[in-house]
């Protein structure tokens, strides 16, 4: 089937437009963007841990997904350095059409920072824009049950075992969260992902990449986080 590039182009344009919109402030506002508001609230506001429910649901409902948690530092309710750690897994067994099996599982991490874009920084709501660098190193097994060569009729075995791969990518994040009760927050984030370097050995393309998702489907991703201030 043919590719549908106009959709990805449209989404890319939408994402870029939104980011430009968010970044479209005056020159003085740009200086403000990087400054810390001066008030009586202390600079260090503590840590928060969060768990992603979307990856968990994907793991339960499909043949790939990830378990992911994050640790975030709250600097004056404005800047939030963050480390995200996860374990991605795919187990696609005996595809009914192609009879291919694809297996991989590996940890991954992302590091980055979020900025609270709201003017009222210390309220119960937060709106974030952020950037992440992510990396994973993983091994892939692709196997197909033996099949007959269409011309010569010999049995053909197809197996790529333990192919060592690695992936570096960047994510632009746009998210929001709200205080539900005490230290508990719930939040969404939308991610625009861009691969920056990769090594996939004998495979031209790997299918599911731990933490990144299925390459080629879409560059957008998302999280739904349960967040606890600690």
């Amino acid at each position, binding site marked *: *089937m*043919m*590719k*549908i590039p106009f*959709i990805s182009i449209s*989404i890319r344009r*939408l*994402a870029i437009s*939104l980011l430009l919109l968010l970044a479209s402030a005056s020159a003085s506002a740009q200086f403000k963007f990087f400054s810390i508001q001066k008030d009586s609230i202390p600079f260090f506001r503590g840590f928060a841990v969060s768990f992603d429910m979307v990856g968990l649901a994907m793991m339960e409902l499909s043949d790939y997904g990830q378990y992911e948690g994050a640790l975030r530092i709250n600097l004056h309710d404005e800047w939030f350095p963050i480390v995200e750690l996860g374990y991605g897994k795919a187990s*696609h067994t005996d*595809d009914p*059409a*192609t*009879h*291919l099996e*694809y297996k991989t599982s590996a940890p991954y991490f992302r590091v980055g920072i979020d900025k609270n874009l*709201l*003017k*009222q920084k210390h*309220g119960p*709501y937060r*709106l974030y824009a952020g950037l992440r660098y992510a990396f994973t190193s993983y091994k892939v097994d*692709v196997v*197909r049950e033996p*099949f007959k*060569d*269409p*011309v*010569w*009729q*010999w049995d*053909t*075995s*197809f*197996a*790529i075992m333990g192919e060592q791969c690695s992936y570096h990518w960047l994510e632009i994040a*746009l*998210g*929001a969260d709200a205080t539900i009760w005490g230290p508990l927050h719930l939040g*969404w984030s*939308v991610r625009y992902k861009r691969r920056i370097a990769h090594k996939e050995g*004998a*495979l*031209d*393309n790997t*299918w599911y990449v731990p933490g990144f998702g*299925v390459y*080629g*489907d*879409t560059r*957008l*991703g*998302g999280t739904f986080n349960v967040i606890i201030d600690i």
Partner: protein
Amino acid sequence: MSDKIKLKGLLYVIVILFTVHSSLFTISCSSIDCPIRNTVSVQYEIRDKSGAALSITDSLSVVTTRLDGKNIELDIATHLDGKDEILNKLIGRSSFSLPISNSHPEDILFFCFKNSEKTVVDTVWIKKDDIPHFESVDCAAAFFHELTDVRHTHNAIDSLVLVNRSVTYDENTVHFYLYPKTGN
């Protein structure tokens, strides 16, 4: 604009983005982004001694022996006037392609040149390494190949020169120049 109103507006944006993303995810899940041409074949170009393309005047058929011992004629594919044609006998063409086995160290082919007077057969042995090729779980398993050696008898073929070793989906790469003997 107050923060609350701004937040509300941006939450709408996020909801819209998620809706778009979900739609895209659904579309992409049902889309199969596989190569349109997923057959792997070896391209031959017939040349005269000066190196110019030569259309053969004898008919050419290519036979191989299957696992069960049966000799079969291979499909010969040609590309002319923007159209692909599958033939079992080639005549009046200067280029063609032949299938290659998925996973076998050596293919043995019998090139049969026939005119009104006689049939001349050459045996061609093509050695290769087979490389499993994976695009996606939605795309059929395929093999690419690295041609490592070729040898042949010299009844009608003067020489068969390996010019590109790598056999992939690329149908524009010529792998062999076939120089027929003159006077056959």
